[in-house]
C-alpha cells in the first residue's frame, strides 16, 4: 500500500496502489492529507463520517477526494487518517462509507502546507492489477 505524487507544472498528480479496495481509498486519503498539512501534528480526537457514491469506480475515487476537500472546509478541520468501513464497486452504483479522524485547524499548532482546490478527472485511472488496485488523478492546487 503506497501513494506517490506525480509531477505536473502547476498542480500535482496523486497515484495510489493497494492490495485491497478499502486500503486504496485510505491511502489516497493519506496522500491528500499529507499535501494539505503536516499530518503528524494533527490529533485524532474528532471524527467525521464520509459517504460518497458515483456511477463508476473512477468517479467514486474523485468523489471521495472531493468530499474530503469539502469536509475540511466545512468543518475547519485537518484530517490525519481515514477508515473505510465499506466500499462497493461491483455494480453501476459504486459507493463508500468511512470515518475521517482529525481536529479543528489551529493555526498556531498545525503546519499548513498546500490548499487543494479539487480532485479532477484529468489523468484519471482506476484499474484492477495482478496485485490489487491502482488509482490516480490530478489534484488542482
Amino acid at each position, binding site marked *: 500500500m503506497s501513494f506517490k505524487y506525480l509531477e505536473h507544472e502547476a498542480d500535482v498528480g496523486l497515484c495510489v496502489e493497494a492490495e485491497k479496495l478499502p486500503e486504496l481509498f485510505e491511502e489516497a486519503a493519506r496522500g491528500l492529507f499529507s499535501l494539505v498539512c503536516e499530518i503528524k501534528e494533527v490529533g485524532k480526537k474528532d471524527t467525521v463520517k464520509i459517504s460518497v457514491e458515483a456511477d463508476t469506480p473512477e468517479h467514486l475515487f474523485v468523489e471521495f477526494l472531493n468530499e474530503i476537500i469539502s469536509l475540511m472546509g466545512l468543518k475547519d478541520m485537518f484530517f490525519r487518517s481515514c477508515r473505510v468501513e465499506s466500499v462497493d464497486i461491483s455494480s453501476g452504483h459504486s459507493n463508500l462509507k468511512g470515518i475521517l479522524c482529525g481536529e479543528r485547524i489551529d493555526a498556531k499548532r498545525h503546519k499548513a502546507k498546500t490548499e487543494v482546490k*479539487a480532485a479532477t*478527472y484529468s489523468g484519471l485511472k482506476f484499474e484492477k492489477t495482478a496485485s490489487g488496485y491502482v488509482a490516480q488523478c490530478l489534484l488542482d492546487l
Partner: protein
Amino acid sequence: MDKIELKKISNYMYEVPKHGKMRVPAVIYADSETIKDLEIDISKEKQWNALLQLINVAMLPGIQRAAIAMADIHPGYGFPIGGVGAFDFENGVVSVAGVGFDCNCGVRMLRTQLSREEVEAKKETLANQLASNIPAGLGVPGHLRLSREEIDKVLVQGAAYAVKLGYGNKDDLEYTEERGCLEGADPAAVSDRAKERQFKQVGTLGSGNHYLEVQYVEELYDRDAATHFGLREGQVMVAIHCGSRALGHQIGTDYLKVLAQATRKYGIELPDQELVCAPLSSPEAKQYISAIACGVNCAFANRHVLGHLTRGVFEKVFGIAGETIKTFYDVGHNNAKIENHVVDGRQTRLLVHRKGATRAFGPGHRELPEKYRPAGQPVLVGGTMGTASYVLRGTEKGMEETFSSTVHGAGRRLSRHEAKRRWQAKEIIDQMKQEGILVRGASFGGLVEEAPGAYKDIDRIVNIVHEAGINIKVARLRPLICIKG
C-alpha cells in the same frame, strides 16, 4: 505518439493545422524557445502535456476559429493554462476545465500617490501591518461573517454589495471588469454547501500562488497610455491576486459531476474526460453559466474587500486619506463569459472560456471606463515575487485574433515538488531581501513552491504578446513587499 506539425505563422505565432478530430486549428502565441519546450514535452510523452491539451480543446463541439494558447502556456487539466476557447450558442459547449476550480481568479491593482522612497522609509512596518491585517493562508478566516442571505446578495451583486456593507466605494466599481457585477447570476444554481464554505472566506487571500504585492512603477514604455491610466515612474501600486475561494472550488466540483452526466446524456465524444461539457442550449449549461456568474461576482467582492483592508493599512502606516488610493483596475483570468466578437465578418454571440488568460479589450470598447477608453483595457500581468509584473493594454489586433484575450502571468516551468527540491524558504527570503523585497508568507512550504525560479521569464513572455501586437507594453513594476497566501 505521432509527430505533431507545428507551423510557424510568424516569429511569435505558431499553428497546429486542423487534423484528425480537430474542428479548428490550434494557435499558440509563443517564441521559438517556448515551442522547443512544448516539443520536448511531446517527445518525452509527458502525461500532462500542454500542447496535447490545446489540441483536445480544438476538438470540442462548436469551437470557433481556433483553440488559442497564450505565451504563458503550461499544462493544466483539460484546458492548458493560458488557454482560450470561444464557442457559439448554436453548437457550442461550456466546460468546467475552461473555467477551473477558482472561478474569476484575477488581479486587482490599486494606485497610490506614494513614491517608492516614501514606502521604502516605512517598508518594514508596512509589510508587518499588511501581514497581520490581510487574512492569508489555508484555513484562515476573513473579517466578515456573512449570513446565508448576505452570501446570496454577494453572488448576485458582487462588489456592489461589498460597497453597501461599507467596504470600498462606487469609484472602485467603475474600474472593475463588468463594474464588479456580472449579470445572470442565480444563487439557486449554487449549492448550499458552496455557500456554507464561503461564510467566513469573503475578504481572504487564500494560499498557493495567491498574493498581495506592493510594487513600484520601474519603467514606462507607452507614455500616452500611462497618462490615460494615471501611471508615473516611481509610483507605488498594490496588486492583489486571488479568486472566488471555497465557493468557486465547490462550484467547480459540483458542476464537474453535472457536466459528466450531461456529456453522456447528449452523447458528446471527448478526447479527455476532464473536458466534460454541456451543450449551450441545455438546461445544465444554463445552470452552470449562472453559477459561474455567482463565482465571478464572489471573486470581485473578495478582491474588493481586500482592497479596502489594504487601504486601511496604508492610512494607518502613512497617515494619508484612504481616498487617495484608487482602484486602478480589476480583471479576472479564469472564467467563461458571454461576449460578442467578429467571426467570419459577423458579430457573433459567444461563450469565451479563459483558463489562465486575461480579457484584453482594445481602444474604444464601450465596456471600458471612459478614462481608459482611448488607450484600451489595462491588462494586469502578475509576474513572480522576485522579478516583475506588467501593465499592458489591449489592441484592435488582439480583438481580431484572440477574442480579446492575452497572458495572465509568467507561467510555471517547474513543478511545486521540483521547486521544493531545489530551494529552501530561508534562502528565498534572504535572496529577496538582498534585492530589496520583503516577503511575508503564511506557509514556508507554500513560499518555496512559488520561488521565482519556478516560473518562466516574465520579460520574455510579455515580449511575445507585445511583438505579436495583441497587446502593447505600458509599464513594468518591481515588487517591494510580497505577502504570500
